[in-house]
């Protein structure tokens, strides 16, 4: 039986309670009658033989690219860049897609007699990956072949000696990327495309860029003009990356792009109920839910976090395409839509969402309040094409504990941003003009980014900018079950229960509002007509 498409359920009196994520836990909530619940399509069937599919993609490139084998020659400099720890979510069971693809590329390189090969994790301004994280993404064989010899690098956006300025776009944007990547005879970029935002020219133009280059599209203006940044055709973020991508190509950097997509088979058997429709839960699913919920209630928060972050998703590859960047990405987007797109008719007054324990920037870390805002208002709010799920002036209700808690190793500048900047103002433009430069250039943040495992100093500001479109669009943001002080610091309204949150929402949108719930998992992309 082929997977069923996504659909919109209208809650009636017989509808069972809806499962809603709440950080490192979840709850069953009876949503008001008439609420629309948007479910994503069921998990697609995976490629039967992903390794064969990869070899086929490398040999049959899209666009004007030659097959990879023909681009490889003895004596060449080959650089393989790959997506970092932020993808996929949760981290996938081994073998990771990056491992499969890179092994295939290396096999071809070895056949062609290429011996100058370097691997680069495309961190942009993200934290460096630990050795175990690199080993997980690349597999033992690749890790052991490269890491001990200093050939497994992590992009350093602050290492001026290893950056090269390739020129300006026609909009005057600096294009500055990793020198090794730029000066190689061939740059192979290996993607995992989890959401429509990922991939395309953004891979190199962002993943291997410097702050000087990134600030041209990671800014408030771009975010306000990206509607949404998940829809590349209406995203200033992507328009800028595409301009940069063309400058990169014109400057002679030869890129062979490899993009992969995954299905939404996200959780292992014991948590399978998370990705099923509630009325289809089996007795075993109900028992699993009750047992898991009960166990989580009794488990200290730190241990719950460790348990959840140990989850390895049984994601499977649904497509792989390789060749010229734009041609590849077009097919990738079609494959993502095939898995995630759900047609929704019309907007809603109130959009509700439960946020999980993990987002792109807290893998093996803490979901701090800024990341909660970013996941809800940056990522989930922007999971639309056409127009936002919620109407202008509407309300978003988020369910998440939103604890006033940070990982000081991974997010040192987040702490300062939250304690000092958001205490002063939440205004995007004021923050950008008054604080961005000092956060971006602070020598301690630079030191920790380069030598420890810290996100770049400017990263929390970017995560705040990520919310710009939502915050300019919405009348109010309400967080259910969050730390009240932390929620208020974000400029949002705290509520104890969903019922309280809906009452608060009525102050903004009026009585008897239309309500839509974004049912995640699984990951979905709303095509709002």
């Amino acid at each position: 039986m082929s997977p069923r498409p996504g659909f919109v359920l209208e809650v009636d009196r017989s509808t069972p309670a809806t499962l809603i994520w709440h950080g490192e836990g979840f709850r069953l909530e009876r949503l008001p009658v008439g609420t629309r619940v948007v479910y994503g399509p069921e998990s697609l069937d995976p490629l039967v033989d992903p390794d064969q599919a990869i070899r086929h993609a490398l040999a049959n490139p899209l666009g004007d690219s030659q097959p990879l084998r023909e681009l490889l020659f003895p004596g060449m400099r080959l650089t393989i860049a790959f997506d970092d720890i932020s993808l996929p979510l949760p981290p996938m069971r081994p073998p990771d897609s990056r491992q499969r693809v890179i092994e295939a590329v290396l096999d071809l390189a070895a056949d062609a007699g290429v011996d100058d090969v370097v691997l680069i994790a495309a961190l942009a301004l993200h934290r460096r990956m630990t050795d175990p994280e690199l080993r997980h993404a690349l597999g033992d064989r690749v890790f052991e072949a490269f890491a001990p010899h200093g050939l497994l690098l992590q992009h350093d956006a602050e290492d001026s000696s290893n950056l090269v300025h390739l020129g300006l776009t026609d909009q005057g944007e600096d294009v500055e990327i990793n020198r090794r990547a730029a000066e190689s005879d061939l740059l192979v970029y290996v993607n995992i495309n989890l959401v429509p935002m990922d991939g395309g020219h953004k891979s190199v133009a962002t993943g291997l860029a410097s702050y000087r280059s990134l600030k041209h599209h990671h800014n408030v203006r771009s975010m306000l003009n990206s509607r949404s940044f998940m829809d590349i055709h209406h995203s200033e973020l992507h328009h800028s990356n595409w301009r940069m991508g063309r400058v990169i190509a014109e400057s002679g950097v030869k890129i062979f792009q490899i993009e992969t997509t995954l299905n939404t088979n996200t959780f292992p058997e014991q948590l399978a109920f998370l990705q099923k429709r509630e009325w289809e839960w089996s007795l075993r699913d109900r028992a699993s839910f009750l047992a898991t919920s009960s166990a989580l209630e009794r488990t200290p928060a730190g241990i719950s976090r460790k348990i959840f972050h140990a989850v390895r998703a049984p994601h499977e590859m649904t497509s792989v395409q390789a060749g010229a960047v734009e041609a590849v990405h077009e097919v990738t987007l079609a494959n993502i839509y095939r898995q995630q797109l759900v047609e929704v008719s019309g907007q809603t007054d109130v959009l509700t969402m439960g946020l999980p324990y993990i987002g792109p920037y807290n893998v093996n870390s803490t979901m701090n309040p800024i990341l909660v805002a970013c996941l809800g208002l940056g990522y989930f709010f922007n999971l639309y094409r056409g127009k936002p799920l919620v109407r202008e002036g509407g309300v978003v209700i988020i369910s998440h504990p939103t604890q006033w808690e940070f990982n000081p190793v991974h997010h040192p500048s987040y702490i300062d941003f939250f304690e000092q900047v958001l205490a002063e103002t939440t205004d995007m433009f004021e923050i950008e003009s008054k604080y961005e430069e000092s956060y971006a250039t602070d020598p301690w943040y630079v030191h920790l980014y380069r030598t420890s495992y810290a996100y770049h100093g400017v990263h929390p500001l970017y995560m705040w900018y990520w919310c710009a479109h939502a915050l300019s669009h919405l009348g109010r943001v309400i967080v259910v079950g969050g730390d009240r002080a932390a929620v208020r610091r974000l400029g949002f309204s705290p509520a104890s229960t969903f019922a309280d949150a809906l009452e608060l929402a009525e102050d903004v949108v009026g009585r008897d509002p239309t309500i839509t719930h974004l049912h995640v998992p699984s990951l979905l992309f709303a095509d709002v007509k």
Partner: protein
Amino acid sequence: MKALQFERNVPRFAASRIASALVGSGKGVRVGPLEFVDIEQLEMPGPGWVRVRPRLAGICGSDLATLDGRSSRYFDHIVSFPFIPGHEVVGDVEGGALDGRRAVIEPVLGCEARGIEPPCPACAAGRKGSCERIAFGHLRPGLQTGYCRDTGGGWSTGLVAHESQLHAVPDDFSDEAAVMVEPAACAVHAAFASEITGGERVMVLGAGTLGLCVIAAMRALCLPGTLVAVAKHPQQQTLARDVGADQVVKPSEHKRAARRLSGSLALESDDGDIERLAGGVDLIVDCVGSSASLEQCLEVVRPGGRIVLVGMPGVVRVDLAPLWQREIELRGAYAYGSEDRPEGPRSTFQLALELVREARLDRLVSARYPLERYEDAIAHAAAAGRRGAVKIVFDMRKTVSGPDVSSSGRGRPNSAPTKEAM
């Protein structure tokens, strides 16, 4: 006259110390050496002395330390018992050039008040706070009015003051504004003692009365590049910003704030918490004066930077290794006198009068109590921060004086305090 008198009574002193240690600051008054008494008027110590009828008298952090038995033995030889506390005073003058007018008292009992001629070098230079004769002359020992047996203090219906101690209060000044002049003068002196030349990164630790006054003084009289206040309680945080702090942080955030402000590198624990800064702020003003606050200062001041100690310390235990290795300057800032200004020396008290007016420091007076309710008043003062208050004062404007209505002994609350914040 009615007064709160502090006796030399070792058992009561010990009881107060134990009670405040066990139950909290201000809670040892009931068993301590402070008594509500009715006593004869004080004798005039000599020519140039006048009577002052206090209207308002503040309760200061140093008063609380004395009542709690926490003050340093250092003061043993420069106070004389029994004394009547209260050195933040506005009152009505009886006699002398200011007869019939309101005045604030500059409480330091320097050479002039003590009838010492020639004055010591410090007094001669206008630095009364550094007087070398505070245990000599025709007064018994006492560094200030409020600690000297012969002068009395503000927590009473009458005291004596030397005319050189008096500063007339402008007619448009409320009593509440006037009672803030003494702490404001301490802050003005501290601001100048910090020797800010402009553009420095400054942190003020503590946002009680003294901290808030220091922030206001620095903002008005110096040119700090950025001034960060470390304030514990919400009302203090609001006021700190209102009186001139560029940024206000909680005590738990002070290291991160100092690091951000200075752009310093930091030394961390394995789990990423900052332990101390490699650099730090140029200047930190300690308005608390405890072991913990001094340690906090040393954690965040840059090598070669300066710590100005304004809050009265007692015996502290602190690791001075960073002070030595980083060549940090630790400087006290006590009291007042005259300040060297480009236009010439100016009285600290006159500068403080201007500061109180400009910064509207009268708003820091949060509650007034009659002397009879001294236990409540002191408990309130000791808990001011967490009760959303700043300065607690005794209000003698309605207290009847004279031996005929005396009721010597421990007062009990009968009337409600007047207060803006509890």
